[in-house]
């Protein structure tokens, strides 16, 4: 919607600019073409003045200057001099239908309008009144009669006119713009919907029908591809879920009978010991199956998150306590360094607990010789991210393995085989962090530098 308003604003501005440009253009053209036409010949006033000046009296008769005669000829005009008595004293090319005598009323009339349909102009002469006439219909002759009030308010009126023009231009441009927008808006909405991966079905009979059809088909293609991708992900995840389901039932029996045999005092010691091995390996398989299931659900974004506000420091203490309560081996020491305890993040408590214990277990598994494990929480400098750090001072991980250790085992991106454990621990942590819009960063110091696993979550 904001985009549309912006387009409309630009459109209106352009229209106004074009209108103003047109106005100026018109004025220029008016000046160049229209008024130039009029000024091609000398105006009647100039002709009159020259006639009056060039008409000299010489003993009862009059003589017109040569140049002025030519001027009259050139304009196809005639001229006459009316004496004080109303008689024509002198004339030049006076048409026959023009009377030779005039009274006061006649003079008053033709001085304002026409004389026998000839446009005539008058000028004062020392012997009377010089009259110059032009051919019929060659000139329009009207007199303006305006009030001085009108004259003084003329500039204001002109400004008003201009403003009115501007207003009309604006109105028209807005109306046209709106109509255009009405045509464009569905298209814009459609494109936005495509970006949000929503299905789009636009009316292709509008002005931009062609465009609408393209958008429709783009949307259809995208929908189809997304659906196919989702179906494939779902199939993969369901496949793993199905396998793990099918493994669980036989494994139940393996575990069940093995642990019964382990507890059966009638059996010899050695067989009970062997049953214990079967039970422990079965339990390993069990954790592998459930981890595999969880990782695949996370990988294909099918793990439902039960989000709530959680303080990670609470989880840190809980994990540390659990390790201590379950008999932490003396080789390992767990330290806590909690800061910014009040900060909450939105997360799934079980998954986050799982991630933290995985990191601690990972440190322990990689350092059978023992190590010191530090759980640390802190806000990033710009207070936009909350960090959970699990650090150990053990052997660390070679630099070249760091990058791929969060990839799933057996995937093409992981070239080395997994050495300890089933290799799902760290990939699971990375995916849990991703599911929380966070990330897992692993840093290992060079040579005996220990491992630092940093989970970053948005606050």
């Amino acid at each position, binding site marked *: 919607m904001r985009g549309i308003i912006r387009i409309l604003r630009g459109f209106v501005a352009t229209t106004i600019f074009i209108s103003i440009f047109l106005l100026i253009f018109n004025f220029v053209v008016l000046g160049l073409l229209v008024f130039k036409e009029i000024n091609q010949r000398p105006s009647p006033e100039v002709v009159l003045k020259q006639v009056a000046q060039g008409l000299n009296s010489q003993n009862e008769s009059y003589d017109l200057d040569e140049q002025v005669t030519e001027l009259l000829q050139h304009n196809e005009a005639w001229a006459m001099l009316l004496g004080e008595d109303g008689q024509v004293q002198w004339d030049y090319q006076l048409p026959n239908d023009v009377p030779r005598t005039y009274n006061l009323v006649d003079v008053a009339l033709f001085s304002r309008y026409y004389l026998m349909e000839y446009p005539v102009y008058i000028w004062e002469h020392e012997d009377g009144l010089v009259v110059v006439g032009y051919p019929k219909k060659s000139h329009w002759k009207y007199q303006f009669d305006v009030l001085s009030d009108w004259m003084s308010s003329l500039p204001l009126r002109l400004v008003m006119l201009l403003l009115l023009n501007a207003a009309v231009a604006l109105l028209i441009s807005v109306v046209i713009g709106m109509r255009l927008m009405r045509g464009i808006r569905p298209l814009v909405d459609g494109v936005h919907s495509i970006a949000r991966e929503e299905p789009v079905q636009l009316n292709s009979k509008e002005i931009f029908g062609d465009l609408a059809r393209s958008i429709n088909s783009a949307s259809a293609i995208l929908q189809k591809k997304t659906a196919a991708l989702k179906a494939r992900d779902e199939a993969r995840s369901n496949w793993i*879920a199905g396998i*793990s*389901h*099918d493994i*669980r*039932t036989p*494994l*139940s*029996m*393996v*575990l*069940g*009978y093995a*642990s*019964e045999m382990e*507890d059966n005092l009638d059996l010899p010691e050695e067989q009970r010991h062997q049953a214990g091995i079967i*039970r422990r390996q*079965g339990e390993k398989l*069990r954790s592998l199956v*459930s981890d595999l*299931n969880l990782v695949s659900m996370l990988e294909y974004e099918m793990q*439902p998150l*039960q989000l709530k506000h959680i*303080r990670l420091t*609470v989880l840190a*203490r*809980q994990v*540390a*306590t659990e390790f*201590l*309560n379950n008999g932490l081996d003396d080789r390992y020491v767990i*330290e*806590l360094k*909690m800061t910014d*305890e*009040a900060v909450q993040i939105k997360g799934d408590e*079980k998954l986050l607990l799982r991630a933290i214990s995985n990191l601690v277990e990972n440190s322990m598994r990689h350092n059978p010789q023992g190590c010191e494990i530090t759980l640390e929480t802190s806000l990033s400098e710009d207070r936009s991210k909350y960090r959970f750090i699990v650090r150990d001072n053990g052997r660390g991980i070679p630099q070249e393995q760091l990058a791929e250790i969060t990839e799933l085992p057996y995937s093409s991106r992981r070239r080395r085989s997994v050495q300890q454990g089933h290799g799902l621990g760290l990939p699971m942590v990375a995916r849990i962090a991703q599911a929380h819009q966070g990330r897992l960063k692993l840093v290992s110091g060079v040579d005996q530098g220990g491992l630092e696993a940093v989970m970053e979550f948005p606050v």
Partner: protein
Amino acid sequence: MDNLKSKKILIVDDEPEIRIMIESFLRKEGFFRIYSAADCASALSICRTGKPDIAILDVMLPDGDGFSLLSSIKQFLDMPVLFLSARGEDEDRLLGLGLGADDYMVKPFLPRELVLRLTAILKRVYSSPVAERLSAFQLGEYIIDLDSAIVHRNQQELPLTAKEHAILVKLYENQGRIVTSDALCQAVWGDDSYGYENTLMVHIRRVREKIEMDPSNPVYLLTVRGLGYKLLVKAIR
């Protein structure tokens, strides 16, 4: 206790081997009235005729799922139910518990765990309420009676306040194990109890004054630095 063993147990699972295995575990534990069914229909008819006292239900059955079976059973018979599922998903767990199941276990399971959980449900549902009483326990010379919230100390009786009582109950339930201060705060002040850590310390101090010989050098209620507290109980009545 013995009458728990005489409770009628219904096992519903489509895998015959699983049924046989569970039945043998239960018989070994002393249960002897055991019914088993392979599908919803036969399970329902057993429920109508045999009126079992508890059921172990599989979620996936050939003619329906365990959840709908539970709903139909609950219409005419009120009995505790333990779900046993090969699907580990959390939704299933929540759905099962939401429908009124008493517990939910994921296959594969250890027989000992199944029997423990089953017995726990039976105790909770069928034992007389007298056994529900909170325990009393002894710390050195003192006897702490959680039921009446009183510390008996050399013929002297020191009453516990509600908060001190809640702290002691939580610690006693997890005796010998560390309880984080967060968990203690939650037990006493409920959810969203951040910021009560200092108040908790004050209350712990008061509890120590009542149960420890020398509150400054505690031997029973120990502080685990940075994590929480631990109650060491030597003799349990």
